[in-house]
């Protein structure tokens, strides 16, 4: 039998031609894959207190109740109650829980994609301990399998699954990487047959922040690591995760894990990209159904380990103050709590913390693929205003983070609001301050 994820893995997460009945059936199959005890506990426990809205930047910015996080999971909740909950036969018999319809799914597209970064802040506030963000993620999976993922995400996911690149470029990213190395006078280890460490890169950095790419090369080189970039597994982002397609996410993940296995890597380094970290560090093994034979670490975790070992020594930076944005997927959902601050501390960075920091940090507004959605731009800017105000309130001269997606989001918002800050990369600061 074909599972929903399998046939969506072969087709398209954004498909305008699917008949409504097929959309409904596919969404239901996707939801059914997630009907487990933990999901049931999450869905059964909701007391409709609405407090999750108070954690969500989209609700706080707009005060529109439709952005209440748990409401975004409603189609999934409804499907569970009707098909799998303890009282499902009763609900079905009395017609108390209606089937999730294609119209309803279409109505929820904005709520699940445009107005949710899957940042997980709502999961921290729930007095019942419900993992609200995970329920929304399952909602996205239903949408993708029903062909209702936004076209920007669905198309990129499919392209990335097929080619390794989420968009067509004039030159392959491996060539862009080589160019960046040459322009910065660096030698890059690319496509080695065997290496202990495999390093990935964010597409957005290859496109927009070549200095960050150069910083990654420089760091790996200075640390004397037996590393390689691989042109067949270069891109860290996983558009399958963004689009909600488990099938495509699996194929994209497999490209990286297969390559890492092939070259005998014991460590895969995820660059400055939050969602890539969640997809590879926490979801890859589950989605592939096997334990990974290598470790996965974010670049700041790796550097933190090097710092602790004494293999990385850093110069002191002087001058302007910084505030640091904690990327949601790293901190709140990934547990990368301390290593960025260890690095900043080692460099003597004058850090001015935001009121909502670490696990409570507000999202940049662009995560979860929202950066890619033109339809979400206006709403995103409203949510981002909150964050920009909080950053300004620190009085810091500069803003730094360690996620390329966050940088894109802040820079876009900065342009929109004519803001006086550009977002900087922690890795670039480290690379510039390694003691020779």
């Amino acid at each position, binding site marked *: 039998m074909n599972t929903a994820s399998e046939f969506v893995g072969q087709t398209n997460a954004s498909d305008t031609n699917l008949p409504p009945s097929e959309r409904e059936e596919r969404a239901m199959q996707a939801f059914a894959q997630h009907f487990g*005890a933990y999901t049931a506990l999450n869905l059964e*426990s909701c007391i409709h207190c609405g*407090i999750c809205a108070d954690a969500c930047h989209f609700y706080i910015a707009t005060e529109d*109740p*439709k952005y209440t996080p748990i409401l975004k999971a409603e189609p999934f909740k409804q499907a569970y109650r009707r098909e799998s909950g303890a009282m499902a036969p009763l609900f079905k018999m009395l017609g108390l829980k209606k089937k999730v319809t294609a119209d309803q799914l279409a109505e929820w597209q904005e709520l699940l994609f445009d107005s949710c970064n899957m940042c997980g802040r709502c*999961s921290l*506030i729930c007095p019942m301990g419900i993992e609200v963000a995970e329920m929304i993620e399952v909602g996205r999976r239903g949408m993708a399998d029903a062909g209702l993922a936004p076209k920007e995400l669905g198309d990129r996911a499919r392209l990335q699954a097929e080619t390794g690149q989420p968009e067509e470029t004039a030159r392959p990213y491996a060539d862009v990487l080589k160019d960046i190395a040459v322009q910065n006078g660096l030698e890059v280890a690319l496509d080695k047959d065997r290496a202990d460490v495999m390093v990935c890169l964010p597409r957005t950095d290859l496109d927009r922040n070549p200095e960050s790419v150069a910083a990654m090369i420089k760091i790996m080189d200075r640390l004397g690591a037996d590393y390689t970039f691989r042109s067949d597994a270069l891109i860290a982002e996983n558009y399958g995760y963004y689009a909600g397609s488990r099938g495509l996410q699996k194929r994209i993940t497999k490209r990286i894990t297969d390559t890492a296995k092939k070259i005998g890597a014991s460590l895969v380094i995820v660059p400055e990209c939050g969602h890539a970290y969640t997809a590879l560090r926490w979801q890859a093994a589950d989605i592939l159904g096997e334990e990974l034979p290598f470790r996965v670490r974010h670049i700041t975790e790796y550097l933190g380990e090097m710092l602790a070992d004494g293999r990385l020594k850093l110069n002191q930076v002087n001058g302007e103050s910084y505030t640091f944005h904690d990327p949601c997927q790293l901190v709140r959902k990934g547990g990368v709590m301390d290593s960025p601050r260890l690095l900043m501390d080692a460099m003597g960075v004058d850090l001015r913390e935001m009121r909502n920091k670490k696990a409570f940090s507000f999202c940049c507004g662009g995560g979860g693929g929202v950066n890619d959605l033109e339809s979400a731009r206006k709403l995103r800017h409203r949510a981002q205003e909150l964050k920009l105000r909080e950053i300004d309130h620190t009085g810091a001269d500069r803003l730094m983070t360690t996620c390329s997606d966050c940088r894109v989001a802040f820079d876009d918002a900065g342009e929109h609001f004519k803001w006086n800050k550009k977002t900087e990369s922690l890795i670039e600061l480290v690379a510039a301050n390694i003691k020779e």
Partner: protein
Amino acid sequence: MTILEFSRGPMLHFALIVFVFGVLWRLVSVVLLGWRKSRAENRVSPGKAAVGGVVATGNRSWPHPEFLDRTAFGEAVGYGYHIGLFAIVLVGAPHVAFWKNLFGINAAWWPTIPSGIISVISVVTIFLMFIATVRRFMHPVLRRISNFDDWFTLAILYAVMVSGVMAVFGIGGRYELVLAAHIISFNVLLIWFPFGKLMHAFYIFPSRFITGYKHEKKGAAS
């Protein structure tokens, strides 16, 4: 058989059967769905993650300071009436006598608090429930997400609380009838319990624990 005898005889027994078997079914039906194995490399041992789960089970009752400026009022009202309900049900003298009788135990150690204090707690609890109800009507988020379960559960709770206070203060007619109304409404609450949101009284512990456990395994805050 008088209505009072009916309410604390066959109706109570029926209600208790529905309650016990209903609650068990709701809990078992969750477990039967099965737990998924997590294959990612954990940051901490299962034992340490379990400690994180226990901590989360406790500390989710205390809101994180980062959220308080938006949530303090709603949480104070919500927790306030829950604490009131617990006090009335668990240490109010007539209820303690009821439990002892129901379970057939002597339990001389079971403390009670003076009826005057319980009366004040009851009135305050009803007042807090009223504020919570008004909030559910007025707050755009609560209004949007509320359903039949929310309103019906509140209605039953009001019936139980108001009839109880009426019985204590001797208002609303013959004592036996008011008491019967109180016990009948409590029986309805027991019958409704496994069908609606009242089940959160049982789900709250595993739900908090497992989320805390999972977060701890990742090294993430909970």
